[in-house]
C-alpha cells in the first residue's frame, strides 16, 4: 500500500540533528497531517557512557524489515529511522524514529511499534561505563513483551 515510499534508515556513529530529520520529512509537503518523533536518549546517573555494538548487515536488514512492516500496516507518508553506534554520553541521543501520516493515530502507532520492535529485535548491544567498571546492559523482559503485543492483532498479508 505504501510500496512507493522508501524509508530513510541510517546506522551511524555520528550524532544527528533531530530537528533537521523532522523537517526533512515534512518540508514542502501538504499531505501530512501528523508527524511523530521519538528520541531515545542516553540517561545519566550511574551511567557515565554507553558504547553500542551492532551486527553490520543484519542491523540494516532487521530495521528494514520492521520498516516495511510498519509501512504495510499504517498509511505513512514518511519514515526515518536512525540508530547510533559507538560511544554515547548521557544527554546524547541513541535512536530516532520519525513517522509522518495524514492521520495522527497512524503516526503514533507506527512510531511506537517500531521502537518496541527495535528494542526487542534489532541486533545492537549496549556496554555501560560506570564508576564501578564496565558491564553489558541486560535485556529487559518487558521489551520482549512490548514487541509481542503488536503481533496479537496483526498477521502478515
Amino acid at each position, binding site marked *: 500500500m505504501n510500496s512507493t515510499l522508501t524509508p530513510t534508515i541510517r546506522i551511524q556513529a555520528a550524532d544527528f540533528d533531530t530537528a533537521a530529520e523532522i523537517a526533512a520529512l515534512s518540508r514542502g509537503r501538504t499531505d501530512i497531517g501528523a508527524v511523530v518523533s521519538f528520541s531515545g536518549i542516553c540517561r545519566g546517573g550511574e551511567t557515565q557512557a554507553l558504547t553500542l555494538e551492532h*551486527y553490520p548487515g543484519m542491523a540494516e536488514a532487521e530495521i528494514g524489515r520492521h520498516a516495511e512492516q510498519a509501512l504495510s500496516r499504517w498509511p505513512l507518508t514518511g519514515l526515518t529511522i536512525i*540508530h547510533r553506534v559507538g560511544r554515547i554520553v548521557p544527554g546524547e541521543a541513541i535512536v530516532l524514529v520519525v513517522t509522518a501520516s495524514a492521520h495522527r493515530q497512524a503516526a503514533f502507532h507506527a512510531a511506537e511499534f517500531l521502537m518496541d520492535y*527495535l528494542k526487542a529485535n534489532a541486533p545492537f548491544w549496549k556496554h555501560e561505563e560506570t564508576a564501578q567498571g564496565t558491564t553489558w546492559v*541486560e535485556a529487559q523482559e518487558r521489551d520482549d513483551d512490548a514487541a509481542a503485543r503488536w503481533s496479537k492483532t496483526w498477521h502478515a498479508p
Partner: protein
Amino acid sequence: MKLKYFAWVRERIGKAEETVEPPAEVATVADLIAWLTQRGDEYAHAFDKPKVIRAAIDHTHVQANAAIAGAREVAFFPPMTGG
C-alpha cells in the same frame, strides 16, 4: 561456514568471527552450539546458558532447532539491548 559473535559472546570466545566446517551430523543451531562447546573452555563459557543465546542465520533471527544446511553465516549473541 562463517560464524560471528557479538557482545559478551564475542568477549568470552575471544574472537569476533571464524570459519568452521562442522561434521554432517551437526544439523541445527542447537547442534552447532553443542559442537562448539566441545572445542574449548572459552566456547563452554560463552554457551554455558544456551537458552539465553540468540542466533541468526544469514541476517535473520532463528530458533535453536533451525537447520544450518546451506547457511553462509551463523551469528551468536546475547539478547539485544538497542533502541
